[in-house]
C-alpha cells in the first residue's frame, strides 16, 4: 500500500504520543538521585542516599515484604480459582455459563471506588479490616477475572478432541485435567498469574479503604509519600517499581515469544 502524506504524518504523531506515554515516568530517575533532602532535580552532584534509605528503612522494607506476601498469595489464589472456573465454564458452555462468565467479569469493570466501598462495608462486621486475609480476599476477587480472561483465551484454541481422546484411553477426569488440559493452557495460566500479581502489587484504592496500621503495603506508603510531597525516598521507590515492571515485562515477552515459537513448530 502506498503511504500517503497523511498516513506518514499520522505515524510520526503516533510515535510522539507513544513516547509521551512512557517518558514522563522516567523523571523519577533523576529525582531519586538528588543529593538534597527534599524532592528536587539534582544539579551537578548525584547521590544514592535515598536508595540507601529505602533499603535500610524498616518501614519501607516491611511494606515491600507485605506487598510481596499479599501479591503472591493473591496470585496463587486467583490463578487457582480463576483457572478452575474458566475450565468449568468452558466445559459447560451453555446460556447460563455465559451469564455467569459476564457476571464474574464485573469486578474488573465496576469502578474501584465502588469495590472499595463494598469490601469496606463487609469487612467491618467480619473483622477483616486491616488484615492480610482481608486484603488478599479483596485482591483475589479483583484479580480472578483477569485469570478467567487469559485462561479462557487459551482454552479457545484447545482442541476438545484431545480431551475426548484422553478419556477414551481410560484417563479419569482428574488425570485428563492434569495431564492434558493444564499443559496446553499453561501460557494462559502463566499470564493470568502475572497479571493477578501486578494488580495486587499495584492496588491502591481498595487498599486505602481496608488497611490502616498493621498492614501497610507499598502503594499505601507511596501514596502517603506522594501526598506529603517532600521525601525523595518516594522517588527511589518509584524507580524500583519501574525496574520491577520492566523485568516483569521482559519475562512476559520472552515467555510469549517462546510460546509463539512452540506453536509454530
Amino acid at each position, binding site marked *: *500500500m502506498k*503511504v500517503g502524506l497523511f*498516513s506518514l504524518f*499520522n505515524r510520526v504523531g*503516533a510515535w510522539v*504520543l*507513544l*513516547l509521551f*506515554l*512512557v517518558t514522563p*515516568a522516567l523523571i*523519577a530517575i533523576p529525582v531519586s538521585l538528588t543529593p538534597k533532602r527534599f524532592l528536587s*532535580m539534582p544539579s551537578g552532584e548525584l547521590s544514592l542516599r535515598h536508595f540507601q534509605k529505602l533499603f535500610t528503612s524498616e518501614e519501607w522494607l516491611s511494606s515491600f515484604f507485605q506487598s510481596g506476601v499479599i501479591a503472591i498469595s493473591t496470585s496463587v489464589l486467583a490463578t487457582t*480459582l*480463576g483457572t478452575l*472456573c474458566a*475450565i468449568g465454564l*468452558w*466445559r459447560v458452555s451453555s446460556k447460563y*455459563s455465559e451469564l*455467569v462468565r459476564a457476571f*464474574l*467479569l*464485573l*469486578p*474488573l*469493570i*465496576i*469502578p*474501584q*471506588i*465502588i469495590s*472499595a*466501598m*463494598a469490601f469496606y*462495608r*463487609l469487612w467491618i462486621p467480619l473483622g477483616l479490616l486491616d488484615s492480610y486475609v482481608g486484603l488478599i480476599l*479483596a485482591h483475589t*476477587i479483583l484479580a*480472578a477475572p*483477569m485469570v478467567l480472561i*487469559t485462561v479462557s*483465551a487459551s482454552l479457545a484454541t484447545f482442541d476438545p478432541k484431545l480431551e475426548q481422546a484422553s478419556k477414551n484411553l481410560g484417563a479419569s*477426569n482428574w488425570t485428563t485435567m492434569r495431564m492434558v488440559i493444564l499443559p496446553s493452557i499453561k501460557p494462559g495460566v502463566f*499470564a493470568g498469574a502475572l497479571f493477578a500479581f501486578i494488580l495486587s502489587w*499495584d492496588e491502591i*484504592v481498595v487498599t*486505602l*479503604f481496608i488497611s490502616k496500621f498493621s498492614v501497610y503495603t507499598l502503594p499505601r506508603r*507511596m501514596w502517603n509519600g*506522594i*501526598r506529603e*510531597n517532600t521525601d525523595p525516598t*518516594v*522517588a527511589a521507590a518509584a524507580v524500583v*517499581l519501574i525496574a520491577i*515492571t520492566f523485568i*516483569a*515485562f521482559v519475562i512476559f*515477552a520472552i515467555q510469549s515469544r517462546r510460546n509463539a515459537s512452540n506453536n509454530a513448530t
Partner: protein
Amino acid sequence: MHALRKHIHPGWLIIAPLLVLVVALYLGPILNILWLSVTDPEPGFGNYAKLGESDALLRILWTTVRICIITTMFSVTLGYSIAYAMVHCHQRQKNYMLTLLLVSFWISILVRTFSWLMLLGRKGLVNVTLEDIGLIAEPIAFMRNEFGVLIGMIHYMIPYAVLPLLVSMQALDKRVMDASSNLGATGAQTFWRIYLPLTTPGLVASTLLVFILSLGFYVTPAVLGGGKVLMVAEYISVQLLVTLKWGTAAMLAALMLFGVLAMLWIMSRFMKLSTVFGGAAR
C-alpha cells in the same frame, strides 16, 4: 444424588468456588450499598432528593461528567491515531509500538501520578525549564486545577482507548478499502466514508470503556487536583472515611453503578465484551 448429577453439568463444581466467593463477598455488599442508598439515614428517597437540593452535589457530578467527557474525547481521538498507525505499518515497527504501549500500560498508576507531580508542579521540570529559557516569568499553574487532572487522566487512558480500536481495525477486510480506491475514491473519501464507519464498533467500545474507567477514577484527580477538583470518587471516600455518611455515598455509588451497567449494556450490543477485556488484558 445421581439424579441431580444428571441434570447439573459436573463443570459447575469447579465454577462454584469462585462464584460463591464473588457472590458472598462482592455482590452481597454491593446490594447492601444499593439498599443503604434508600434506607440510610431514614427510609425513602431522601438521599436522591439531595441531588435537587444541594448545589455542591450537583457541581461535583457535573465536574465528574465534564472531566470524563473531555478525557474520553482526547483519549479516543489520540488512541485512534495510534491504532491506525499501528495497523498500517510494518510488523517490526508495529511490535516496537506495541511494546511502548504495553510498557506504559504496566507502569504503576502511583509512579505515573508522582511523575506528573514532579513535572507539573510550581517548581516542576516544565516550569523550571520554561523559566530558564525565558519564556515565562512566573510559574504556570499546571496542577491543582482541571488541566492537571485532565493531563494525568488522558495519559492514563490512552492505552485503554487503543486496545479495542486495534482489535476492530485488525479485523477489517483490507480489500474493501482497495475496492473503494479502485472505484476512484480519494484517500480522504475512503477514510471518512468507508474506514471510519467500519471501525464504529471499536470506536463505541473504546469510548465507553474509557468513559467508564474515568468515572470512578480516584488516584489522579485526588493528587493532581490537589483538593481543588472534587470528583465523585474522592467525594465518596471523604463521606465514608471522614464524615461517615453512608447514605449520600451509597446514593452516589448507586448512580455510578447504574450508569456503568447501562453503558456496558450498550457496549455489549456493539462488541463482545470479552473481546474488549481480552484486548485490555493482553
